[in-house]
């Protein structure tokens, strides 16, 4: 199982010195599939690797540097666009880690720009972004109504000329999810980074990453989320984190994320039965980078929708999606 190789290489970089070509091919395929190749390249920077592997890792480091530069540029553009509004731009996830130089940001793949703003300023933010060249990705009325009614963010927008996406959040979980994080507290306790940019407090960063991974998804990209969490945990105070997680209604999620992060990337932890299932899902990838254990993967896809929505709403949502030809893969 190459996902297991990937986890081992991240936990113990020196372990790669025993790999043969088949092992390396599996490790590289898994790291690319999990979008952890840049992170892996940083972790292996000091390790002697075979000559054929060196350029692959060097390319990954170059790509990661460009990702970070582009992400910071998008953040800069958003700050410029929102300057007249006097709204704090709170960066979430990868862009925040890169801007603040956090360990979780090293080599990290960064896709869209995610920002958090107060819910009562959403429409002003939306207008300012549209004036600065962002536009809606989809014109589909169903998806739009779905976002506005139930989600924790505006429908995704893309910049007309730069072709980069922005997700504007007003809280960190969909409104249909069971936990209801305190968005006002997230915003009030945000920390400045530089140049008008903010990020969540150290404890809230873990709460968000855990919520994103365990309460709001089918665990796609879970190994990367968990690597983030492992790095973020080192930056916060355990008892403050526990209080904060309880305040947001995310105590169980944060505790589970901590157990999984320590079990996979750290010194180990006692896992529950449910943890073992999640772990099996996270490691479901073969030596060609393919997802294995299709039934387990599909179970988590259903669960992720269940987590966000009451059952009747779920049925209606899946029906609308499937009628349009969408299939979980």
């Amino acid at each position: 199982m190459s996902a297991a190789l990937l986890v081992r290489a991240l936990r113990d970089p020196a372990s790669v010195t025993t790999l043969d070509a088949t092992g390396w091919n599996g490790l590289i395929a898994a790291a690319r599939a999990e979008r952890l190749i840049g992170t892996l390249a940083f972790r292996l920077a000091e390790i002697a690797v075979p000559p054929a592997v060196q350029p692959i890792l060097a390319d990954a480091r170059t790509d990661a540097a460009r990702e970070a530069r582009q992400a910071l540029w998008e953040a800069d553009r958003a700050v410029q666009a929102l300057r007249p509004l006097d709204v704090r731009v709170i960066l979430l996830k990868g862009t925040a880690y890169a801007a603040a130089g956090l360990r979780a940001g090293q080599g990290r793949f960064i896709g869209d720009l995610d920002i958090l703003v107060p819910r009562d300023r959403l429409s002003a933010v939306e207008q300012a972004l549209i004036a600065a060249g962002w536009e809606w990705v989809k014109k589909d009325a169903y998806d739009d109504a779905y976002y506005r009614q139930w989600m924790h963010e505006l429908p995704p927008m893309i910049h007309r000329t730069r072709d980069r996406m922005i997700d504007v959040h007003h809280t960190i979980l969909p409104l249909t999810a069971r936990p209801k994080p305190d968005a006002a507290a997230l915003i009030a306790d945000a920390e400045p980074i530089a140049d008008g940019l903010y990020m969540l407090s150290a404890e809230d960063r873990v709460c968000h990453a855990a919520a994103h991974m365990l309460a709001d998804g089918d665990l796609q990209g879970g190994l990367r989320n968990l690597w983030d969490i492992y790095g973020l945990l080192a930056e916060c105070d355990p008892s403050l984190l526990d209080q904060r997680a309880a305040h947001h209604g995310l105590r169980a999620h944060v505790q589970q994320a901590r157990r999984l992060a320590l079990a996979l990337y750290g010194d180990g932890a006692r896992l529950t039965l449910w943890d073992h299932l999640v772990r099996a899902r996270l490691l479901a990838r073969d030596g060609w980078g393919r997802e294995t254990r299709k039934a387990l993967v599909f179970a988590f896809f259903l669960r992720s929708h269940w987590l966000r929505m009451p059952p009747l709403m779920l049925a209606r949502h899946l029906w609308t999606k499937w009628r349009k030809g969408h299939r979980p893969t």
Partner: protein
Amino acid sequence: MDNSLSYRRDPADALLSCALEDLTLLYHRRSGQTHMVISPVPELLDRMADGATVTAQALHDRLAQDFDLGPADEALAEIATHLYALAALGLVRPA
């Protein structure tokens, strides 16, 4: 276009430039974007290289030291338009 707006160039927005016949290519390191521009844009950016905050009027006066710009109000409007467009690209910043 509002001629009273002022702009500046940030050192972080440094450009790499290359002239190709009558065009100038600008590589903006911070965004990773390549821009293709023609006169008077390179001249205009050149005269903001010191990082000072300028209005269209101030920039007009700087350019007028080296070039014949023709009627002042037309030249001023053109400069203001260029500054606005450059700010949208992130090559200059509203001050």
